[in-house]
């Protein structure tokens, strides 16, 4: 009965609209109706859908990314791998979409957990575990993370995937939470753990990052020689991507090692080597002039100190 009444009132309302306007509306409605009659064209290839979804995610088009990921399992050609990849992608979108209030952490976490539970051997399982740990670390702006919980979450990833890149990354994050306390005892523990890591995984692609953390820890402990050595090892083990000017630019690292050697370790021999490398390899760098100054300064200081030391 209410439906009939509604239909009647609608009809009356439509009649109230003047004839020319109705005609215009018809013109507009017709193509829309014709479009609706057209066959639904859906991309069926799950690999293409995944590619499109990630592309949309990178372009910050979260709605399209999510829609594409959610369509993957419906594709007849989709296998288990595609289903997991789509679930991971959808979880990433829910986890990281911007602005932060639009994120759906609960559903994202549920997705990550399902991947770990249902496909523990899948290539995305370690990354799902790491993503769960990162969710505890990357709290909303203005809040402080619960570091005990954060460390425990990283430990789960390390225990489960000790040899995987995600496990190595988790270890770095975990140790950074200790080093950031600037407490000597916590820093010593972190350094021991990192030293163990570099000894156990000398081929890890995160080796340079581990040395970087060791350098930071040594700075806290006031061990200038240890810091200098770690910084040099960090540079030596660094991966260079020649296609990225930021990655390929070592000038600031040379400067960092040189100034650490000069002002913290008192190792003028090492400082000279790196100041000179900066001058030779980066003739357009803004630190070239200060590097020349530093070489002259050290020379002058040594002359003065020699004079003081001479009997």
């Amino acid at each position: 009965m209410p439906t009939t009444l509604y239909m009647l009132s609608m009809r009356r309302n439509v009649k109230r609209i003047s004839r020319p306007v109705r005609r215009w509306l018809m013109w507009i409605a017709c193509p829309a109706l014709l479009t609706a009659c057209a066959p639904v064209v859906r991309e069926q290839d799950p690999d293409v859908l995944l590619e499109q979804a990630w592309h949309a995610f990178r372009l910050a088009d979260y709605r399209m990314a999510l829609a594409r990921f959610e369509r993957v399992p419906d594709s007849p050609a989709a296998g288990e791998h595609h289903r997991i990849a789509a679930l991971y992608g959808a979880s990433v979108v829910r986890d990281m979409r911007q602005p932060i209030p639009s994120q759906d952490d609960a559903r994202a976490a549920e997705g990550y957990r399902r991947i770990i539970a249902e496909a523990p051997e899948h290539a995305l399982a370690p990354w799902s575990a790491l993503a769960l740990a990162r969710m505890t670390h990357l709290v909303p702006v203005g809040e402080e993370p619960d570091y005990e919980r954060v460390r425990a979450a990283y430990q789960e990833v390390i225990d489960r995937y000790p040899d995987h890149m995600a496990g190595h990354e988790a270890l770095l994050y975990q140790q950074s939470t200790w080093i950031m306390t600037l407490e000597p005892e916590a820093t010593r523990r972190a350094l021991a753990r990192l030293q163990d890591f570099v000894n156990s995984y000398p081929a890890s692609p995160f080796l340079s990052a581990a040395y970087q953390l060791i350098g930071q820890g040594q700075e806290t402990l006031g061990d200038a020689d240890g810091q200098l050595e770690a910084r040099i090892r960090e540079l030596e083990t660094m991966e260079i991507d020649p296609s990225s000017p930021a990655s390929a630019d070592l000038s600031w690292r040379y400067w960092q090692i040189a100034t650490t050697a000069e002002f913290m370790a008192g190792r003028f021999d090492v400082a000279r080597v790196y100041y000179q490398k900066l001058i030779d390899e980066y003739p357009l760098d803004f630190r070239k002039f200060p590097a020349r100054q530093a070489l002259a300064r050290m020379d002058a200081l040594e002359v003065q100190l020699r004079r003081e030391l001479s009997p």
Partner: protein
Amino acid sequence: MIERLQRWYPFVAIVVIFAWSAFAINRYRSSLAPADAIVLRIGHWQLEASVREALETMAEDYRQLHPNVFIVQDAIPEMVYGQWTTTQLMGGTAPDLLQIGLGVLPRHLWLQYYNRYCHSMTATANEPNPYNDGTELEGAPLRSTIKDGMRWTYVEEMQEYVAIPLSQFGVRLFYNRELLRELTGLEQPPRDFRAFIETCNAIRARTRPDGEPYTAIAASKYHLPMWENFMLDVVTYPAIRRADFNRDGLLGVDESYVATRAGLLGLDFPAYEAKFKLLRMLTEQFQTGFSGLTRDEAVFQFIQRDAVFMATGTWDARSLQEQADGQFTVGVMDFPLPGMDDPEFGRFVEGPLFEQPYVGFAFAVTHTSEHAEQARDFLRFMASQKQNEKLNRIIGWIPSVKGTRIDPMLEAFEPQLEGVTRAFNPDLGGETWVNWMQLYSLYQVNQISLEELIARYEPIYREKGLKDFMDQQRDWRRGMHLQEETLAGLRALAMLSGDDEGSSRWVKYRGITSLRQVSPEIQRSRQMRLIDEGPENPGLGPYEYTPEVLDKVRAALRREAEMTP
């Protein structure tokens, strides 16, 4: 009938105007290129006639090689370029090639636009430019043929190149040669700051035919930062030794604040005081009320021969020359610096000021382009050694490509590639910055003394600045969220492409992870400790020797002496 017409009049008017506009635009566009031609639209904010002429010439040259390609320019005024870009990109009607980077849009917005609406230029940057064949740049990746290695158009957040820059820019001091000679008898302006100020005083002592005194330097609120960045900041360099805690060779705004709180820096730091004194000596040579004037008003005064000097950039060089044509000769000189032997300022001058080679006039290819590959190719063409030299010769700018010749007048703009960096950075943002700008403006026009400036601003900076500093820290955490998103995209791309762990994408992934996600929390902890507890060695900055370090050096020298027979 009339009633019906009245009722429908607005709709009819809209339809007629729309139809007329569509017809007019279509007719205009058709007149620019044949119906079957490939038309590339290029959008930019350079209204100078020489830029349009140069791009036209490039289009004609390109058509010699690709007869079916026509270039149509959309030259949009700078004032509305931001809005225009936004609407064109969002509406899907953006030109094929879009000039990027104008400051009217904030950087984070440009980032979104690059990400959403522009093609990556990374592949193009890493490939040789075929139009350089037969030159010494043949076979070199395009990025290495650009003077700054295309660093400026590499977007760290995306780990991609987004555009190709076509010109280099610089800032120098322009002067009226004849007026200088007439008023001072000098053929060349002095390079030393004190001698320059004396010359300015001599100019101001002379009167124009209407009885008013000449102005030494035409300036405005637009011009003052040039004087600061390219001249006055040379004396601030010693501050770097006190506050470069992260050892990158630069003074960050956060480091500046932390150093002030730790008692290592302050406005009364002798090098900063020197800068403020120099500033006062300089602004006395500007015309009265300069801080309320606009760029055009200062240019007008210079062109009218009321002022001898004016600071500006390469972008104004050609138009100044043209406007002065027949009236006077425009000279270009380096900014006069205080000498190292200057009794008051010399001890702060350790060398000339370093100038980063700044390239710009950069274009991206938009996603809406139907001929993206052709647009990319046209950019390669303009970025080739021969064409880039020609393009910039017509405009009157400096080419961005290595090994190109430049207009003799512009030779003075060659950047100073060895020197000290500026080390004054009080922009904490928020209320602190507003307070600084207010007080600093009063100081510039001699309404408060240096002592008053320091006494009034220092407490604001130290105490209220903490809130703005903490706001910046919150931005840092926000940045980590955004970075995490970038990393997820990068990781997915690497996995989807089946890249091995040593591939470029994974290297980028690990590089960002290490530098942007793992380390910053530790740096932040150190900064907070410095604010709360001060430096470990009171009164000593990161580039100053501690007694322990000096002892180690002595010990090393002793060992060396013992080993020497």
